[in-house]
């Protein structure tokens, strides 16, 4: 065993997370186990966004010497399924605990067939090492609800490995023989044999730098859904290895404002030729756009039918489809702010209102007939423009409970209900 590998084993941790679950319209706590890797002596730990996110109430880290230390969330990025934690160093110091940290390797240099190891906590079995090879170093998949309902995979491709990856491996490192991190193990096909996926270290390094700085990654948004041009080059009459197809333009988006249409072929972004013949080539193109500073002016060269079109798009900030969540203990209801993305997906007029994500049985909201999936648009005739509006009315209600009028939208039907103490 190399010294580097030994060092790596000492930097892999088990992560126990207690997090809120609002599904029943109440503050319930779920427990889960994942893995992580210590990146620095100041206690930064890299793991998956789906292991520890903003809903975490308590995070406990088990070091390689089996000692337990609490940790806090530094920031997360569900798009790449990465989270950054920081150990409670004061506590560690007080207790005289020491730990090692691991180093990144270069995922770009991996070759298919190269031996890799996954280290983590599958099914709670702390410090398990499994071995395999890189099965594919450029796997593509996107998932709109992949990380607890959040989008993921739009800006990176994945490493695929046949090293055994089981639930609990999530967030652990995928390493080469010298113990260097080449990926963060993230997911596997359940019920399949040895089809595991990891976020490449080249992406992870960039995200870690961003999270250390701001606690989040800011990206640009233009509102286009791309599709590989595969098999369609002939139809659109474009040169080989040129262009990417716009499958869809989101209504009200910067791209729509710039006049782009579904069916257009993007040939170049800011003068740089794009090649989106195959699905694997889409994340880098999407990342190219997302990496522009918010508010940048982006020049697009397009082909529409036989016409060449040039237009400029001013990018906006990329927002997640999941808004702020909150639970009202008095009404027995959990809600999530409607985001612009959610409003667009569901063809709502605008982003006013909150989505009901949980209802507690027997509580006022349930008694009045409010159900999961409903959208609360007004309370006592006030538009619910933010969760704060609801919090304010809830506070008044808690102080002096009085019948309260809710306007609720279900599918496209509007009904009025009264919540009573």
């Amino acid at each position, binding site marked *: 065993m190399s010294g580097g590998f030994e060092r790596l084993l000492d930097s892999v941790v088990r992560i126990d997370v207690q997090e809120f679950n609002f599904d029943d319209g109440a503050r319930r706590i779920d427990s889960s186990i994942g893995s992580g890797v210590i990146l620095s002596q100041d206690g930064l730990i890299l793991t998956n966004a789906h292991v520890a996110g903003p809903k975490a109430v308590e995070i406990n880290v088990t070091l390689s010497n089996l000692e337990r230390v609490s940790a806090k969330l530094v920031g997360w990025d569900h798009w790449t399924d990465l989270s950054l934690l920081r150990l409670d160093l004061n506590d560690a110091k007080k207790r005289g605990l020491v730990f090692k940290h691991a180093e990144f390797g270069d995922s770009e240099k991996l070759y298919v067939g190269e031996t890799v190891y996954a280290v983590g906590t599958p099914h709670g079995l702390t410090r398990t090492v499994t071995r395999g090879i890189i099965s594919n170093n450029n796997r593509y998949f996107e998932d709109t609800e992949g990380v607890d309902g959040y989008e993921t995979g739009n800006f990176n491709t994945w490493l695929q490995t046949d090293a055994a990856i089981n639930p609990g491996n999530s967030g652990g490192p995928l390493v080469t023989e010298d113990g260097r991190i080449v990926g963060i193990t993230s997911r596997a096909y359940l019920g399949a044999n040895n089809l595991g996926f990891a976020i490449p270290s080249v992406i992870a390094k960039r995200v870690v730098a961003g999270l250390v700085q701001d606690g989040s990654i800011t990206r640009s948004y233009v509102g286009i859904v791309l599709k590989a041009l595969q098999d369609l080059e002939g139809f659109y009459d474009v040169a080989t290895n040129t262009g990417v197809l716009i499958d869809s333009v989101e209504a009200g988006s910067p791209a729509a404002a710039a006049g782009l249409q*579904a069916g257009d072929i993007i040939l170049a972004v800011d003068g740089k030729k794009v090649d989106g013949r195959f699905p694997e080539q889409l994340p880098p193109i999407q990342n190219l756009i997302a990496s522009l500073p918010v508010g940048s002016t982006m020049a697009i060269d397009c082909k529409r039918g036989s016409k060449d079109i040039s237009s400029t798009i001013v990018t906006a900030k990329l927002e997640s489809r999941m808004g702020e969540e909150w639970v009202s203990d008095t009404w027995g209801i959990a809600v999530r702010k409607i985001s612009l993305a959610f409003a*667009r997906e569901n063809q709502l007029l605008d982003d006013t209102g909150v989505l009901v994500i949980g209802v507690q049985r027997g509580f006022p909201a349930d008694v009045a007939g409010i159900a999961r999936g409903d959208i609360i648009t007004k309370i006592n005739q006030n538009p619910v423009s933010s969760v704060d509006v609801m919090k304010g009315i809830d506070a008044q209600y808690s102080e002096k409970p009085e*019948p309260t009028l809710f306007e609720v939208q279900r599918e496209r039907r509007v009904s009025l209900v009264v919540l009573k103490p």
Partner: protein
Amino acid sequence: MKIPTLLLCAVALATAVRSADLPALWADRVKCTVAVEYVTQTELERHPSVSYGTVVDSNGTIILPSAAIDLRISPKQLKDFRVYLPGDPEGTPAEYIGRDAFTGWHFVRAGAAVRDRMVPVTAFAKSGPREAELAEEVWGIGLRNKDEDFTPYILQSHVALVQSLPQRTAIAQQEVAGPGLPVFARDGQFLGLGASSFGQTFLEFSGSDRDGAPIMLVNLEESSAFLTAGEVLPYLGRIPKNEFGRPLAWLGAYGLEPMDREVASFLKLQSQSGAVVSEVLEGSPAEKAGLKAHDIILGVDGKPLPRFKPDRVVIDYVERLIAERAPGDTMVLSVLRGTDRIEISAKLDDEPRLVREADRMYFEKLGFTAREFVYGDAIARHTKATELNGVVAHLVKPNSPADIAGLRPDDWIKEIDGADAGSFTAAVQKLGDIEKDMMRSETVFLVSRGSDTAVLRIKLH
């Protein structure tokens, strides 16, 4: 042990004496019942259905309940209607006349050959409509399945409850007639028509679940509920003029939702009933008259909306008030908007073309049916109803080129080969040309599905 046996004898005797004439009444009245068979013929399959009907006049006109035919099916796809007299294995061809929007009934006319063997139900309602009374003894007719030659049989019960739903509906203690078949008083007078059965909740036990899980069962062959004679007799003459039941009165207030008691008292409307308008449809009479989304309709033509149990019934009530009218009629709505009460006078229109009226064309080589994009499609897709453009994929044949390319039913095809699909006629022309062109290896559609669009490449070989 002796006493119960004696009692049983006494009960049996009493029943026997009282029902001495029932077989005779029954034998006459069975003649106003029929079974109706038809075939739903789609591009890919023929699907037979059977329902029960009641004869309403001497021209062989028969009414079937609304649920007898799926409203999403185009009348053009309804084929091979046959009328079977009870106990008759042969059947006679019949013609589908259409559906009346107000009653919901489908009208069918039996061929001349069997008309003289049928008796209209009106023959048993000479003294006009009479409402069933509480606890009254009632009986009705059921028909067995086709393999038993639709043999008629008798059902008997007592009236347990009469309610407005919003139609006056009697609910008997047990099943009293097949849906769509008549119910009579003890003396043979017509009392009503079997309605769709109400669900009953049962507990289902299984090996793993010993506490029982509630399940709702609905009897499709017999019903304990019937529409009273007053809801039937006055409307037997509403024979549709065409298979679509046109003209159809249209207001354009979409998604009416009941205002419940709690909300009424919150809004200081006390005992008032009401209907919340979810949306006002583009270009509709409601929009022209100034009705707005979220208005609450409290009354029609100066009369407040009555209160029903459950609250939801008021929606059917309002919808029937519209359906009862004709395009051109005026409807005055009393509306609550915020805290203001206003009167809105809407002149009803003929409803825009419905999906089941839309033109369709099947393309065998591509493997899908293109359907005309109609007003309702625009509403469903939140787009401008003035821009009725493109076609909708109505049916996609499994494993056809269209299916393999990812076309799905309800996809809205907006562009064909990079150009606007255009009107239904234009699109059908284009698709026809594509199919005819033997040299062609592919065609590309731009389709809209939900909030997304997608470019689909259909390979033709």
